[in-house]
């Protein structure tokens, strides 16, 4: 160590005494994982509470919006881009099945429309304003009229319970929450909130699907006198999809197998016969037998209104 003799710093007598910085004063001695745990669970807790609160408020408000006002707001959202000059036979036949089911919900304030979407994935949607969209893939997958009637009845159930509006409201609420978290805490925080929020929404989604199933089953039972065929579609789909525990957790809809069991239980409780004759689909609805016609580009979604 070197020395400066007697360094006098102007008015003071100071000795140079070199020392090392002290550790632990400018840096908090907290394990980063402890800090991470507190913050992550804090954000998850706040997100779940906020998204759930929005969900409950939306569920409370949505049913009080008159269907007429909803139709007024959304009627031109899902119009076919070009009104089909001559409605395709498949859409007409689909419309006929819808009419058979919807007469059993006489006090509906909607004027329903159907659209066929050119997608291979079997799916059906209830869109705001009273439009039911069915994919070509779903029409190809169903084997009886009862099966199709239940799908349409399920979508009517979504309208009956105003699920499409509730879903829309929750979606908007969720976006606002994520936007706010993103502003406050950046991308990482927003991602964490998105995961927590989506899992919270799953509970709402599944309750809705089960309620729509029950409504649809009631319409099918009223039309055909029995519920045979209603759950056939889920049996077909279950055969082609593998359902792991993770898939079940992430899915918005209950698993196909669970739905079959639940539908049976609902029918039994209501005293609807589980067996009966299934009605044929009719040639206009059946899957095209010529494979070349399937690959031919389909027209825009057809509105039969």
């Amino acid at each position, binding site marked *: 160590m070197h020395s400066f003799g007697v360094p006098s710093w102007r008015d003071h007598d100071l000795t140079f005494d070199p020392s090392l910085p002290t550790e632990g004063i400018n840096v908090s001695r907290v394990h980063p994982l402890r800090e991470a745990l507190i913050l992550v669970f804090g954000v998850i807790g706040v997100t779940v509470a906020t998204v759930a609160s929005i969900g409950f408020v939306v569920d409370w408000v949505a049913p009080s919006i008159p269907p007429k006002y909803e139709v007024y707001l959304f009627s031109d959202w899902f119009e076919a881009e070009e009104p089909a000059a001559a409605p395709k036979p498949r859409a007409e036949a689909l419309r006929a099945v819808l009419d058979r089911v919807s007469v059993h919900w006489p006090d509906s304030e909607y004027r329903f429309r159907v659209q066929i979407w050119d997608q291979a994935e079997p799916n059906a949607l209830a869109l705001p304003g009273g439009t039911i969209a069915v994919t070509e893939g779903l029409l190809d997958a169903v084997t009886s009229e009862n099966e199709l009637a239940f799908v349409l009845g399920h979508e009517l159930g979504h309208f009956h319970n105003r699920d499409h509006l509730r879903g829309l409201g929750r979606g908007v609420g969720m976006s606002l929450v994520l936007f706010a978290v993103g502003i406050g805490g950046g991308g990482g925080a927003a991602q964490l909130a998105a995961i927590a929020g989506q899992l919270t929404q799953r509970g709402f989604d599944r309750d809705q699907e089960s309620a729509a199933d029950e409504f649809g089953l009631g319409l099918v039972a009223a039309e055909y006198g029995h519920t045979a065929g209603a759950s056939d579609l889920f049996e077909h789909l279950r055969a082609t999809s593998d359902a792991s525990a993770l898939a079940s957790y*992430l899915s918005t809809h209950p698993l196909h197998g669970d739905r079959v069991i639940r539908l049976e239980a609902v029918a039994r409780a209501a005293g609807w016969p589980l067996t009966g004759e299934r009605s044929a689909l009719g040639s206009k609805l059946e899957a095209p037998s010529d494979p070349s016609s399937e690959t031919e580009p389909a027209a825009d979604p057809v509105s039969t209104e």
Partner: protein
Amino acid sequence: MEDAMGIAVLQVGIPLALLLLGYFVGGAVERRHYASIQERELRWRSLPAVNFRTVPGGWIVDDATLVLGNVVISVDYFKRFLAGLRMLFGGRVKVYESLMDRARREALVRLKVETVERGYHALVNVRMETSQLASGRGGSGVAGIEVLAYGTALKLRTPPT
């Protein structure tokens, strides 16, 4: 279903991988840096570096010059993520404290090395500046922090022995 699974894996997997990378690699980098800082602080501890603005009386100064010690340190994803969550609630951003501490001490050590290598004996009027380097085009996002230490290096008639 498979699409949904794929999206979920991407949505959860990529940030999780970045968090683990930040925690383990970033943590190891920080431990190594601290070890290096402590070793060099010990080596250069006897070089006086003070923030007095004037030369201590009794020193005979032959030469004086400006010397600089500068460092830029980046934030790992783990620290950035936690700081983001902390910004929602407020409070001490503890994960950034070690970052600032390392940067200040590294800058000071470099200042001393610069002083010695240029043949000077002591430092007065030592100052520090901090700035944040932004990564985004709009000036958003932290790419890293810069600490600049500067001071007046003195060449003494009777160098310390």
